[in-house]
């Protein structure tokens, strides 16, 4: 596997993990406030930069003092995205990030991700939701039984799936 021209096996794994940000299927909040959570990614993070990261995840600065355990599912997932953005990743890998969210939170997260992509942060979004892939993706890779079954436009992927 290669990343920006380098074999990932040859890269420092810790540096690579900061270059490729990851958002998981289930939001995982750490103990403490939202500020504490963001400072896990960067212990020297000041409140201005923390508020900026929250803003990119569509959360108000007031969230900094909120206990992370008290956030709703959608808020927690957006906090996790903000936490990942603190590391200034070159690429975002999002593993079914909306699968446990309600429709409104899903739309918010999708909109934020599109904004990030427009800002120049490529996003690899894993999903089983074909309409969602069509809404978000510029390019689609379909994996079937561990192999690449298709790579191309979202429309092409839809046609392939319709053909069965």
């Amino acid at each position: 596997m290669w990343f920006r021209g380098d074999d990932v096996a040859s890269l420092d794994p810790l540096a690579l993990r900061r270059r490729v940000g990851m958002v998981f299927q289930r939001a995982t909040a750490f103990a403490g406030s939202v500020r504490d959570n963001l400072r896990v990614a960067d212990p020297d993070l000041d409140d201005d930069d923390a508020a900026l990261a929250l803003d990119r995840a569509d959360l108000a600065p007031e969230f900094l003092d909120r206990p992370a355990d008290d956030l709703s599912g959608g808020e927690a997932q957006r906090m996790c995205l903000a936490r990942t953005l603190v590391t200034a990743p070159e690429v975002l890998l999002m593993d079914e990030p909306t699968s446990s969210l309600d429709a409104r939170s899903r739309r918010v997260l999708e909109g934020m991700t599109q904004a990030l992509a427009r800002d120049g942060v490529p996003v690899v979004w894993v999903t089983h939701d074909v309409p969602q892939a069509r809404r978000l993706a510029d390019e689609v890779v379909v994996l079937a039984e561990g192999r690449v079954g298709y790579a191309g436009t979202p429309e092409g992927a839809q046609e392939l799936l319709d053909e069965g």
Partner: protein
Amino acid sequence: MRADIGWAGLAISLLLVAVAVALSLWRRLDLERSIVWATVRALVQLLAVGLALDLVLDPGRTLAWSWLWVGTMLVIAAAVVRWQAREVPAVFALALAAFAAAAAITLGVLFGLGVFELEGRTLIPLAGLMTGNSMAATVLVARRVYEELRDKRAEVEARLALGLASVDASRPYVRNALRTALIPQIETTKAVGLVVLPGAMTGLILAGAEPFDAVRVQAAVMYLVLGSVATTTAVVALGVRRRLFTPDHRLVPMERPAEV
């Protein structure tokens, strides 16, 4: 008061076992056989140890036998930890290293700085107190580190995904485990003399020592135990953590015990 109670005194003390058996019969606890078996077994074990100590502590015997005794104790203590924390990988080797480190530090201070004179009569009891009192905390910390990292896998992996090294990603969970293992010993040390009269001091007073002499020995023993518990738990906690991560900072798979 004499320390030697004689065989007659020992026989009379068995009356207290009879009280326990009578209570079991009266309340139909069905524990009589267990009580008698435990009593006989303890007596046989103690007599065997007494016989062996008599041989090892003979004034003409070289100190090497006492060191051999201590080494055997450390191996048995590590085997007990292995038995009680079976799910933890490589726990025997870690516990053995921990007990050896604790022995080197605590006995090194007590004998190296001349707190006690180095002879079999001091070496074996002090090493026994050190290992005996450290075992429970060592088992506890090994299991807690393993369980914390297994049960909080999602959190640990989220920290790793942020680029944290395994040492940093696991720090809160290892710290919790260490606090859980150390706090009971600290509380016991604080309560000593207020709630219970500790064993070494009681034994010395029963043997005819002056109370203040006994207190000084007991205080040194308590500090020995505290230092030993801190050492064994730290070595085991850090060792278990090291075993649970790969060199490229990934948490290894850990199995949950089967539901009963």
